[in-house]
């Protein structure tokens, strides 16, 4: 599995895109994760308005209660090696916590949006809550973690998450606090959206989805995880398009805001150099170079989509990115 070509979406058959667009939960179980990622990137060329994305949400939302994890539990116990489990947990646990963090930290961004943006964000909040519940069930019913509350289960998977996870996600919490004090401030909104939608959802999430879902599909295992996480990826495509549209509009209305995009990326890339533990990707079929290239191409695509160029110092930082971000 190599990296995607940079800054250009591979031509996709309209039929496949139609399938991704309209599939219900049973249908999405059969869709290739690479096609869902192409679907995300196709949307970046149009950047639909918030009400169109809201309509898409009404059509695409799925019911987490429809997932049955019993086959996943058998696969986990019988068909997955210890090394694969460790790699899988190192990556998936970042998602378990990431979904929870983006759920609780989205609210300040809603406060200063237009009415249409507020409507869309209510749908995104519901998505993120459902993603949090999805991971909670996966960890309880498949991995076997115990806990009465969502936080109990999160505490149980924290051991698999790198300490440096709290870099990008602590930044999100604090940028959210700054936004709460002045929800309409354009610079604070751009900073927040760059961290949340461009970096966490657009770079980290999509890369991790490609790695873990590609692994499940190739091995033919964890069907409920595959189904729910593939549907999650499609949800993320709306979130990323929504955020990038806001960034695109903001930097075109006021080009000085490009500096905020750059400053946030600079801080995120700087934190990325502090690797406190290594994530082993090989059991899932990836090597470090492949993951690094995947992150870099995802980042360049998203930055390109909002009409911003990376400054030379940022380009140099991207070239040296560590592939540990998936775990945090």
């Amino acid at each position, binding site marked *: 599995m190599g990296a995607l070509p940079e800054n250009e979406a591979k031509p996709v058959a309209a039929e496949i895109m139609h399938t991704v667009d309209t599939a219900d939960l049973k249908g999405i179980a059969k869709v290739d994760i690479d096609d869902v990622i192409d679907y995300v990137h196709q949307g970046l060329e149009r950047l639909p308005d918030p009400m169109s994305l809201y309509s898409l949400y009404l059509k695409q939302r799925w019911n987490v209660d429809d997932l049955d994890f019993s086959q996943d539990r058998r696969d986990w116990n019988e068909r997955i090696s210890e090394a694969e489990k460790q790699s899988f947990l190192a990556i998936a646990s970042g998602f378990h916590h990431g979904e929870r963090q983006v759920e609780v930290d989205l609210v300040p961004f809603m406060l200063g949006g237009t009415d249409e943006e507020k409507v869309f964000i209510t749908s995104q909040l519901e998505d993120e809550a459902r993603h949090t519940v999805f991971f909670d069930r996966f960890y309880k019913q498949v991995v076997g973690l115990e806990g009465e509350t969502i936080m109990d289960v999160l505490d149980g998977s924290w051991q698999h998450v790198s300490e440096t*996870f709290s870099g990008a996600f602590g930044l999100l919490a*604090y940028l959210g*606090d*700054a936004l709460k004090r002045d929800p309409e401030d354009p610079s604070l909104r751009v*900073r927040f959206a760059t961290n949340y939608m461009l970096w966490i959802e657009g770079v980290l999430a999509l890369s991790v989805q490609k790695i873990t879902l590609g692994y499940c599909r190739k091995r033919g295992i964890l069907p409920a995880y595959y189904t729910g996480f593939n549907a999650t990826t499609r949800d993320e495509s709306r979130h990323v398009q929504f955020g990038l549209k806001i960034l695109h509009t903001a930097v075109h209305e006021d080009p000085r805001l490009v500096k905020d995009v750059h400053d946030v990326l600079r801080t995120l890339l*700087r934190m990325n150099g502090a*690797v406190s*533990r290594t994530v082993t990707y090989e059991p899932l079929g990836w090597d470090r170079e492949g993951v690094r290239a995947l992150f870099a191409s995802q980042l360049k695509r998203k930055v390109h989509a909002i009409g911003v160029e990376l400054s030379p110092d940022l380009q140099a930082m991207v070239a040296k990115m560590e592939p540990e971000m998936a775990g945090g």
Partner: protein
Amino acid sequence: MQQYDFFTQQWAEQAKAFINQGHTAEYKATKLQTYWDWIDRVSANYSGTLALGVTHLPDGPGLETAFIHLTFANGQVTGARAVSAQEAFTAEFVLQGKYKEWHTLMNGFEIGKGIMYRKLRLEKGDVLEFFNRIFFFVEALACLPKVPTHFPETAA
């Protein structure tokens, strides 16, 4: 062992000593060297001020506050003082939390996770500048539970 009242001048001096002493080799071995190298690079160039604030101290109606003002020069603490709120807010960064959250952190709750969960909040300072040095601050604060502390709720 002598205990120091939480967030007093004597406690601040102990905090300074423990931060400057740094972590044990045993603790450092739990994280990769690349992480400590990053912190060393950041701290070598860091001179500035950080104030820590605690609110809702248990004695009284629940709004009592206390502040510690730390001065860093090239990553070392060169000054540590118990100060007023007004003076605390002259620092470049003010990190503040309720007493019950501090108590959790002082009992070993992971500092980085505590920041992510907003147990402490950045009440003053540029968020990006703070996060450019985040793991340096996290590991400095992770030295604070080593101070033998007498907490107000256990006061005789």
